[in-house]
């Protein structure tokens, strides 16, 4: 088979894996070698679906012995199949890298013969790249659940990031949709990698030149919308993964119906993209904003409001904490203001060292006030324009068009009283803003 044909089959088979990040590793180039890691990560292109392309994302093979109902590569599907040899993978990676098309390699695989056999093939591909081709760019590799832990360890020394996919957020769903996989076999390599990362890190404190282990950390992915779990159970699971398994990232992938005929899968027309987006927002709140899963959702409202982002939602449910004074609030509280993120919070902390900030200062500093204005005061002054009332603010945030008070306390007196047409709400609005 032609290389081009293979690449087509094996990259489109890998595209449902959402992980794309290339950050977290600052591996240095060696003399005579090629490539290095950029710890901030670099995106090299953006595909037509708007997702970034930073790694050459391919499967080693899409021949599979498993039959997971949600997966395009399952054994019972009639799709074109192909396999790369480790040499072909290395060659493609190097030549793409030399032309600056990619930041590195993302290599996954379907299961051929057995998990251990597949893992060995993956190991061989990265060994070839690192040792023969002297490639020092970023490599992200899948650890295959059920593979011999010794091969996983050997691979971990060579790569920058490893991931094991959880696939579905509960054991029941796994049983139903991926009968050959089970929770235990997924968590086992995950736990193993975590313990190795910690172990090697400690080792490096004593022996500086000891080999690193998965320096960019571990990640995982789960499919959202293919099984009946609610958002609460999903973010609780993520929280546990971050706390106990020290994962760097949990990726969420809106379920795309690739296999039409399965009684266990929901029939949907469009992937639940907005739900995926809300989960990512919540995920960020867990990782960078000091929120816990229990604060964002509870048993009474186990799903996110599609209309409003999780942070604004939290703020409105805890409106008694607001407004906060921009010039006094501590970092943790600033981060909890809707619309203020890590960057803005740092900017505020910096700028208020030399000057007490007012509303215009914030605007000039580039802090987005669309949501924040309802929750802050600047030098004691409130600029939200509404009473601090969760219902009013919710209304203003979810429905931009009707933000204006339906019953104004003032009235624009007409210049032409003979015209009996009353000004509409819209006219009132325009009379204030001056916009037509």
């Amino acid at each position: 088979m032609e290389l081009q044909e293979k690449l087509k089959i094996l990259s489109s088979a890998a595209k449902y894996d959402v992980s794309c990040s290339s950050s977290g590793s600052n591996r240095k180039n060696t003399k005579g070698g090629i490539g290095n890691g950029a710890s901030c990560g670099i995106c090299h292109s953006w595909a037509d679906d708007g997702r970034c392309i930073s790694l050459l994302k391919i499967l080693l093979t899409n021949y599979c012995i498993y039959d997971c109902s949600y997966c395009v590569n399952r054994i019972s599907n009639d799709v074109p199949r192909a396999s790369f040899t480790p040499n072909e993978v290395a060659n493609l990676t190097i030549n793409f890298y030399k032309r600056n098309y990619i930041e590195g390699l993302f290599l996954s695989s379907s299961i051929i013969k057995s998990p251990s056999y597949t893992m060995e093939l993956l190991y061989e591909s990265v060994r070839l790249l690192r040792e023969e081709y002297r490639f020092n760019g970023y490599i992200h590799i899948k650890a295959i659940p059920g593979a011999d832990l010794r091969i996983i360890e050997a691979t971990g020394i060579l790569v920058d990031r490893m991931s094991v996919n959880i696939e579905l957020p509960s054991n029941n769903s796994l049983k139903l949709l991926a009968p050959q996989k089970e929770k235990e076999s997924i968590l086992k390599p995950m736990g193993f990698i975590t313990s190795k990362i910690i172990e090697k890190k400690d080792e490096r404190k004593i022996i500086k030149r000891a080999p690193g282990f998965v320096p960019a950390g571990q990640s995982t992915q789960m499919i959202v919308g293919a099984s009946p779990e609610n958002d609460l159970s999903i973010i609780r699971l993520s929280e546990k993964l971050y706390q106990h398994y020290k994962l760097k990232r949990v990726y969420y992938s809106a379920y795309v119906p690739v296999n039409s005929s399965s009684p266990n899968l929901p029939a949907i027309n469009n992937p639940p993209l907005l739900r995926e987006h809300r989960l990512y927002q919540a995920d960020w709140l867990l990782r960078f904003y000091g929120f816990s899963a229990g604060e964002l959702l509870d048993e009474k409202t186990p799903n996110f409001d599609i209309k409003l982002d999780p942070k604004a939602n939290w703020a409105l449910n805890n409106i008694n904490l607001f407004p906060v004074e921009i010039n006094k609030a501590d970092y943790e509280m600033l981060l909890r203001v809707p619309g203020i993120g890590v960057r803005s919070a740092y900017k505020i902390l910096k700028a208020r060292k030399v000057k007490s900030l007012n509303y215009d200062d914030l605007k000039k500093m580039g802090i987005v006030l669309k949501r924040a204005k309802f929750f802050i005061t600047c030098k004691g002054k409130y600029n939200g324009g509404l009473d601090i009332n969760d219902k009013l603010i919710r209304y203003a945030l979810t429905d931009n068009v009707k933000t204006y008070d339906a019953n104004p306390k003032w009235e624009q007196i007409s210049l032409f009283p003979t015209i009996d047409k009353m000004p509409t709400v819209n006219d009132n609005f325009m009379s204030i803003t001056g916009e037509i």
Partner: protein
Amino acid sequence: MINYYYDGSFEGLLTAIYEAYYRRESPNIFPEQKNMQLQMLATNVKIETSEEKASKVYEAIHKKISYNALKNTYHAYLSEIKGISQDIFKYLKFGFKIGEKVDLYLSDEKVLPVHKAAKSVQRERHLILGILRFKSLHDDLYYASYEPHHNVTALLISHFSKRLSNQNWIIHDVKRNIAAVYDKSNCVITDLPGKIYRQPIAKADEYENLFKEFFNSVCIKERINPKLQKQFLPKRYWKHLIEK
């Protein structure tokens, strides 16, 4: 009113700032352009670039303000935004007055334009690191053309000479007719006419087609979102991308 004109180089700008300080004047500082119209009622002063004076200002910024301010100054200069020379002058004047705290005045009119320009340059540099595309010309020569908004070529060198240290490459800014040329050990910036990038390359590169194939097949058709794509990758950069 006094106007200073410098030759457009960074050293020229620093010299102008030096002169303004020692002549105790508060001029408007402009880079010199071709066919420039001088103002009739102003005193127009041509500043001769001096390496020595420039390096004095350079050191002074580093020592009396901060390294960060020096970086901001240089990056803002590279932005080539109209009127940025004058903004840099105001920023440095303020900086020499209050020292390293200058970068805390995030909402100040004297600081804001320089911060904005520097940020814009840094952001574009980061994008370019990803979207620069090298073409393989001969066995071991890789050539990339691009047209950045700001003059970021000099900022790309450290990244690519570390990463692609084992190949010869040229990064060519077609808009400004300059190029960074690297020969596996050293890198120089030199003039290179912008026209040459259009000349056809004799050898077809199979990896270009492979990458196009990859680019198309990695996209999930159910999620197509051109608006998002353009948000990350503005259309003005598409011309030099082989996948587009």
